[in-house]
């Protein structure tokens, strides 16, 4: 995974198959970045994700909940069909805003800076 931040927006570029095998490492990496970086909004780029299950979604939703209290917003981008399917099923697509690209997400959530 790669994590970038632009202003108040953190973009996490996830990779591969996100399941129990990687969930602990993913949680730690995201929590570490959230502590280190002065960000409010969270964007997940799924472009390089071929599979995610409810264990993986739990990690992602859990990180969003951490920033939601402080008014943080939640963006997703790069949804291939199997990923879109479970984001829909889980209700995440009703909470998160979907963007056409990480760049768009940063512009829209970051307030056009």
């Amino acid at each position: 995974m790669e994590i970038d931040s632009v202003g108040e927006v953190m973009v996490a570029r996830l990779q591969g198959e996100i399941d129990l095998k990687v969930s602990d490492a993913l949680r730690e990496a995201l929590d570490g970045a959230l502590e280190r970086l002065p960000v409010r909004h969270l964007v997940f780029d799924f472009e390089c994700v071929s599979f995610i299950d409810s264990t993986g979604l739990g990690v992602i939703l859990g990180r969003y909940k951490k920033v939601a209290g402080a008014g943080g917003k939640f963006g997703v981008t790069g949804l291939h069909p199997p990923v879109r399917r479970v984001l829909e099923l889980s209700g995440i697509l009703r909470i998160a805003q979907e963007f056409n690209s990480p760049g768009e997400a940063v512009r829209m959530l970051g307030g056009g800076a």
Partner: protein
Amino acid sequence: MLNRFRLEFLSRPENVGLARVTVAAFAAQVDPTLEELDDIKGAVSEAVANAIIHGYGNSPDGIVVVEGVLYGDAIEVSVEDSGKGIENVAQAMEPEFSTDPERLGLGFSFMHAFMDSISADSVPGRGTRVVMRKQFASRH
């Protein structure tokens, strides 16, 4: 019955993917659609993760058994553990019910959504067996 297999493995996180790959390669023998294959992989992932996390409490030395049976137009997949079992299966299957506050409680809901039918047999203290079935759209 066209074909069947039985896969046993240790309750380690990396074996969720092993189960997914094996079931997908098995199901692929009857030429399912990509979406059907994704559904089957998703359902297997949920059931195997549950066996490891809930059944064995993340202890890596339990045995998980995945079985698959292919019929001409359907697949049946079962996932079994000899772990702690489920006290109340009906409650466990409710959307967003989880005994782990860190989890979403959506595993069984996903299995329902991905497959045509699912049933779980569980004996507290002895283990759990989930059986799922999916009909393939006929394209022949």
